[in-house]
């Protein structure tokens, strides 16, 4: 068994010829066929076998070469059906690879297929894919979280050591907490989004799962960098992010939000978080609490919902259902065809979000809803930046309760004033690098901790995360 190992362990075995790429691909296929979490959309096993057989030699410096991976179904993949888990895109076979897919293929990684997600990435539970509910391998009655549910599942169950996701609110970092994984969201603009089906452009970030921090740092070294196909792609120089882990380059000032800390009701989570803070202090880190304004914490959820729903309206207007999609009979005009296709192609939840987005963009409402949410975002980020004037890292639990049971879910716009469930959106509003990694187990369910840093200080985020990994001794977790 190799696929339950880390990227660096598999790489070492490949270099020493203890295993070959085609053996890894066959093992991955065999494991995929036993999937119990409903992780898969389309698979491209024949293409993977062909690529694996063509690899003759792997050099020491070719860390990713010959290693299989999966991608969330919202990345365009040449010749492989891409639906974003929505019927509106049934049958869409992209004619190009997303830039991040190209980079991974150029590094020699082997794409095995596409994973389930909440439809069009609009959901946090992993329950709204057109392929059905994706479950948590630690307890199949519970959610694994979303929207990158299938990608979390394939890494958590040891099918691959790495899978691509995307993170608009917490769509990689929350499932990482529920599934005992490392989930990393780079700085917005650090990784090209060309070929990623947009949900909310000002928040979407190419993100991913691994089973340890070092693997995550290597991946960023390969996929980051300027791309002239993405106007939001940064020209800042990319780095060797693994050096921050291997050479222990780190900052020292850690902060956490007093209001969030005081709101933790689960004793075991509080105790695990307290223990981590004590250990970090013992290692010479300076830890302090920060008084982030409570009203801005409560503003996170409505700000996120209004901005993301409104941006989603615009981004998904191109889904006409004409070239591919659910298929429509007896339409007499393109308007009727498109309306019938979109009615049939979107689920009820997506339609609800679109209506709220459309309402917030009506000329009579735009100032009071969409523009005001954008102003609230400015205040939220200004205050976050003030925090980062005094601290190098924001440290918080990544979840505040066990993942909910699927039978107890409620998808309505939350009327309960709450900020704990939405705290990770801070990283999307500010574009900050942010990582979740395992903190503890409660009732045999994993629960993560999250580290957020200043924009473009992705390497330093890896560095602290690596220190935490040494303290918790929770890495390379696999639930078979």
């Amino acid at each position, binding site marked *: 068994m190799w696929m339950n190992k880390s990227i660096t362990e598999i790489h070492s075995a490949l270099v020493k010829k203890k295993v070959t790429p085609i053996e890894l691909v066959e093992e991955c296929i065999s494991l995929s066929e036993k999937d119990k979490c409903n992780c898969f959309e389309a698979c491209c096993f024949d293409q993977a076998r062909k690529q694996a057989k063509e690899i003759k030699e792997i050099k020491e410096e070719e860390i990713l070469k010959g290693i299989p991976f999966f991608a969330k179904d919202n990345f365009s993949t040449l010749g492989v059906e891409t639906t974003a888990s929505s019927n509106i895109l049934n049958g869409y076979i992209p*004619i190009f690879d997303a830039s991040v897919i190209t980079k991974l293929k150029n590094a020699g990684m082997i794409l095995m297929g596409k994973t389930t997600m909440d439809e069009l990435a609009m959901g946090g539970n992993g329950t709204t894919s057109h392929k059905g509910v994706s479950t948590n391998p630690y307890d199949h009655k519970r959610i694994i979280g979303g929207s990158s549910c299938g990608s979390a599942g394939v890494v958590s169950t040891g099918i691959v050591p790495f899978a691509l996701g995307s993170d608009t609110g917490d769509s990689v970092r929350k499932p990482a907490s529920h599934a005992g994984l490392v989930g990393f969201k780079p700085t917005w603009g650090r990784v090209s989004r060309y070929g990623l089906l947009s949900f909310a452009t000002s928040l979407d970030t190419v993100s991913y799962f691994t089973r340890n921090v070092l693997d995550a740092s290597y991946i960023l070294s390969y996929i980051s960098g300027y791309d002239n196909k993405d106007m*939001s792609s940064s020209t800042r120089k990319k780095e060797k992010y693994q050096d921050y882990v291997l050479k222990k380059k780190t900052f020292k000032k850690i902060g956490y939000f007093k209001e969030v800390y005081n709101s933790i009701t689960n004793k075991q989570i509080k105790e695990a978080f307290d223990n981590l803070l004590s250990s970090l202090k013992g290692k010479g880190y300076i830890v302090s609490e920060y008084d982030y304004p409570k009203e801005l914490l409560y503003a996170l959820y409505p700000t996120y919902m*209004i901005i993301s729903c409104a941006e989603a309206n615009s981004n998904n207007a191109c889904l006409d259902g004409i070239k*591919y999609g659910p298929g429509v009979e007896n*339409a007499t*005009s*393109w308007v009727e065809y498109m309306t019938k296709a979109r009615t049939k192609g979107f689920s009820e939840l997506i339609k609800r979000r679109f209506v709220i987005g459309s309402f917030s963009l009506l000329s009579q409402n735009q100032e009071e809803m969409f523009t005001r949410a954008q*102003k609230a975002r400015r205040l939220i980020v200004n205050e976050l930046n003030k925090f980062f004037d005094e601290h190098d890292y924001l440290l918080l639990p990544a979840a505040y309760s066990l993942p909910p049971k699927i039978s107890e879910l409620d998808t309505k716009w939350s009327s309960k004033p709450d900020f704990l469930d939405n705290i990770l959106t801070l990283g999307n509003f500010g574009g900050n690098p942010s990582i979740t990694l395992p903190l503890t187990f409660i009732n045999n369910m994993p629960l993560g901790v999250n580290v957020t840093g200043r924009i473009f200080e992705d390497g330093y985020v890896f560095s602290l995360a690596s220190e935490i990994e040494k303290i918790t001794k929770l890495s390379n977790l696999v639930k078979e």
Partner: protein
Amino acid sequence: MIKITKNIIRQCAKNMMFDLTSEEVDTIFNEFDTVYAQVGFLSSIKGVDEVEPMTFPYKEHQHKLADDIPLKPLKRALALKNSNTAFGNQIKLPKVIGVNSDVDE
């Protein structure tokens, strides 16, 4: 901000080019108490109207013209693969321009 009605919900859906069942309209309508409450909360935040709206996390966009790089044309086989109604070298598209169309034939 205008008061929500079921007709406005249907109009918003129409703007987005889909229809809603009456049950779907009811579900959305019932959600709006919460939407109004939270929008009201945002407006009550101290200083919210004294700042500029934030459209992106930071300003660092590139506006230079991309270099002209010749691209290989799309391969016919790949284009045909994208349709489940391909005949020979052609793709049959659904008829979307008809007698009631607002586009001149």
